[in-house]
């Protein structure tokens, strides 16, 4: 059943993105930012974790989860180190994702040449 809900929830998030593109004529950068902020706000309201429990990768793969994890890291560190933890903790949970993007990006750029 979780496959079904992963499909529905993940698909719905993508449909919203496509609507932002096609109907509201937003560019990819703005669309992406909106999703990150939306994920962060949903986590702030305590709604994103239940969504992941419900839909699995349908909620954890889309970029909205990046916003969710930014908030997660900030809150975690804030509990341990107070207000300074908000700043140091933002990339705590997401560091693997960001580092992977940089490392794989560099490797890809070294090996491959764009076909145009």
């Amino acid at each position, binding site marked *: 059943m979780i496959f079904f809900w992963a499909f529905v929830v993940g698909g719905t998030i993508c449909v919203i993105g496509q609507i932002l*593109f*096609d109907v509201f*004529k937003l560019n*990819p950068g703005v669309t992406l930012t909106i999703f990150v902020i939306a994920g962060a706000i949903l986590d702030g309201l305590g709604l994103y974790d239940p969504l992941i429990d419900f839909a699995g990768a349908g909620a954890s793969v889309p970029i909205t989860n990046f916003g969710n994890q930014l908030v997660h890291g900030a809150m975690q560190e804030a509990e341990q180190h107070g207000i300074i933890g908000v700043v140091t903790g933002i990339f705590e949970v997401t560091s693997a994702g960001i580092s992977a993007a940089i490392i794989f990006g560099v490797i890809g750029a070294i090996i491959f*040449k*764009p*076909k*145009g």
Partner: protein
Amino acid sequence: MLTGHRTWIYNNQPVIISTGTVGGPFEANGNIPDAFDILHDDMWLKQSSFEKAQRTMMEEAAQIAIKNSLIQKEQVKFFISGDLINQITPSNFAAKTLDIPYFGLFSACATSMESLALSAFIINGDGADYILSGTASHNAATEKQFRYPTEYGGQKPPTAQWTVTGAGCALVAKNGEGPRVTSATIGKVVDMGITDAFNMGAAMAPAAVDTIETHLRERNVDPTYYDLIITGDLGHIGREVSMDLLQKKNIDIPEEMYRDCGLTIYREGQPVLSGASGTASSAVGTYGHFLKLIKEQQVNRILVVATGSLHSPLSVQQNDSIPCIAHAVSIESGSDNQ
């Protein structure tokens, strides 16, 4: 010489004595591969960047135009060119390589006809005897300049167009054999408030119609005076919009004589969305394909209306509208005018 407000009649009828056209792999697979003197099978042209590849195409087109004529490079007085990349650097570098005195232009995709109109004007007024007039564009370099690098894989709506990888160059001379440049109408900037940079055909259509209407009125001729009226890169959508506007203005151009370089270069089935675009669209379409029709005497008189969107990536980001322009040049076969 000046007729009306913005139409030049070239009494001395400068001649296009030769042309040079270069295309990329996508163009080689297109509808008019015969229109190109050189077709490259590699987007990079063995260069280290797409911008350098564009520069190389411009140089090649100019060199072929000279080679196809009987004159030497040293006889060419000016090189008039422009393109879509920041500060028109591919044209600037090509001018360095060619070592010919240079005018750099920017009129986006209308550059080809702006350049041809000015070249003919200078020659008509005895300012030079030979001028190279040309432009180049490169699909990947233009995507990077105006939108996203192609490897980013950004989505494009069906209204978007495909920038031609190619270059077209004409050698304009005072005397000689070849099609003659007879008149030109300089465009006004027309801005109907469209802000969608993925729908430039619709944005440019009113500019094309304004220039066509002005040209016909100031020359006092009927559309049927020409065998073909050819727009630069309106694509499917821009063509439809322009036909509606022409109809509203009671300008009746028969559909089969109203052509678009943007719908000529590629075949059905190539993923070019609304059609071809880029400065090379009107240049290779005109110099490679339509001038051939004149030489083969299939047509005698054509009016080329190159259309350009004069926006920048920054002006789009700042939500400005897209200012557009169209320059028209009439080219006629030498035989019935001599």
